[in-house]
């Protein structure tokens, strides 16, 4: 792999950019691998990269039914933060945030991580009390988060309407300054390139149709649309389709899959300096480096794999955006899409061993998996390599639904889903 650098750009500029090589290879699948990861999104590709880099396991394939990064990795609103309430969540999201900070250098790929600050608006006394509780929990745990008055919030984010006569008045806000955004496609591409460089096979357009198990129940490999591929260990990281894939191995997981929508506006000049979220009126918004306003809507109420969603869901969000930021009332929306999120009963992810020997699962990231990409991938690689969870992910087991040790993070989500 040729390293990307300013010298590489200069060199290629001298020879009409004819020397750029493919970022990752697309090899024919081998007959078997040490590890197969199902799902080439950020989490799956990242896990393959960390398996190769930190655990020395390079005989790895990432199998994807579509194209890499074409699922939720390419459909989210790219928000990064770690201000969750419970220790199990703070552990993994903060681990992830720390990896985000050095990810571009680590991968030699500009993932455009931009710590521009994530602001959460408080509209009433209950919001304020719960946000202050969050801030105290974060500070005790060594995570940055601070309280802003409405005037301070307006100073940090000038388009905000803080007038007393606003439809949704604001009585304060929290700000996590290290939170922000990153370029979602670049995360998938960067991991794919770095993993491919270390010998990982990224196999696209290859759908897993079954998981073959041996006489003792252990995994032997996967049936795919390109034939059988053997594997000693299998990691499932299939987002909204995780329960479909797990069913192939006879394991039921407590997930329900719902569409989550997002939309972007026409490109504007830089106008919006940070990420703003409002749980109470359900809105979150940021501006991409291309200039589009990136707006996240809610989930539909029913299970669906349609990768679309109801129009009333996005109009509801846009109602709130137009009230909070009257300046955007005449902005045109350009594209809208949906992704399928896998939600757990306690709204916390599942990462751990399964009852099937050799089968590991990473799912249930629901509406907030993008921010966790590096941390989740890093700990999933540890889980697959060692066969037991890393300390930071030890609470996220599948078993918690039997023991009752749930991580009831629903109340700490940025917006109510």
């Amino acid at each position, binding site marked *: 792999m040729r390293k990307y650098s300013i010298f590489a750009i200069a060199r290629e500029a001298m020879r009409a950019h004819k020397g750029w090589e493919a970022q990752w290879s697309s090899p024919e699948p081998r007959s078997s691998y040490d590890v197969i990861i199902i799902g080439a999104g950020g989490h799956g590709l990242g896990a393959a990269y960390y398996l190769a880099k930190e655990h020395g396991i390079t005989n790895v394939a990432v199998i994807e039914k579509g194209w890499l990064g074409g699922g939720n990795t390419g459909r989210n609103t790219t928000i990064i933060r770690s201000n969750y309430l419970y220790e199990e969540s703070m552990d993994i999201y903060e681990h992830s945030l720390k990896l985000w900070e050095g990810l571009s250098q680590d991968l030699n790929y500009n993932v455009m991580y931009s710590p521009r600050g994530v602001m959460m608006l408080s509209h009433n006394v209950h919001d304020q009390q719960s946000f202050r509780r969050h801030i105290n929990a974060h500070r005790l745990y060594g995570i940055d988060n601070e309280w802003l008055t409405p005037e301070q919030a307006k100073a940090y984010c000038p388009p905000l309407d803080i007038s007393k006569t606003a439809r949704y008045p604001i009585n304060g806000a929290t700000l996590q300054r290290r939170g922000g955004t990153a370029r979602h496609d670049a995360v998938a591409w960067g991991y794919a390139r770095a993993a491919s460089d270390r010998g990982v096979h990224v196999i696209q357009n290859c759908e897993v149709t079954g998981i073959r198990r041996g006489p003792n129940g252990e995994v032997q490999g996967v049936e795919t649309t390109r034939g059988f591929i053997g594997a000693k260990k299998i990691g499932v990281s299939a987002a909204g389709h995780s329960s479909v894939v797990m069913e192939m191995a006879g394991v*039921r997981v407590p997930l329900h*899959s719902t569409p989550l929508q997002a939309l972007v506006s026409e490109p504007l000049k830089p106008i919006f300096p940070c990420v703003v979220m409002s749980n109470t009126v359900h809105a979150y918004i940021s501006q991409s480096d291309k200039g589009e306003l990136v707006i996240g809507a809610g989930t539909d109420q*029913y*299970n669906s794999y*349609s990768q679309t969603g109801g129009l*009333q869901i996005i109009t509801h969000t846009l109602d709130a955006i137009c009230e909070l930021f009257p300046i955007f009332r005449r902005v045109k929306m350009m594209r809208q899409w949906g992704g399928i999120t896998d939600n757990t009963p306690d709204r916390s992810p599942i990462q751990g061993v399964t009852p099937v020997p050799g089968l590991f699962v990473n799912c249930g990231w629901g509406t907030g998996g993008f921010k966790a990409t590096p941390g989740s991938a890093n700990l999933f690689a540890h889980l697959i390599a060692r066969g037991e969870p890393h300390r930071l992910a030890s609470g996220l087991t599948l078993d918690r*639904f039997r023991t*009752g040790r749930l991580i009831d993070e629903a109340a700490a989500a940025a917006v109510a889903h």
Partner: protein
Amino acid sequence: MLLIHCPYCEEDRSELEFRWAGEAHIARPENIAAITDEEFAEYFFLRNNEKGLTYERWRHIHGCGRFFNAARDTVSDRFLMTYKAGLPKQPIPTAEETAAIAEEKTVETWEATEGDAR
């Protein structure tokens, strides 16, 4: 937005009038104190989450307020049928039956009853 047929009101109404209420035909264990943790987790948390045909409950919360069951395709979001709560799992209507049902249905939307079309 979905258009849902309430089997009690016998009308197609907008999804806004309804609440989704999870998978249908899950029976609460009769002696719940006696079951194991595994059985409780199975009953309480584990769901089929089908890709394709699913049986689910809905509630006509802003209408008659009653729960009913539905069969729906989770890929196309198309409702195959709805039927009253308490009935056993119903067989899926054939393509001809579905077409016949669609034929005789009048869809009560604003456009059809009061809008420009009228």
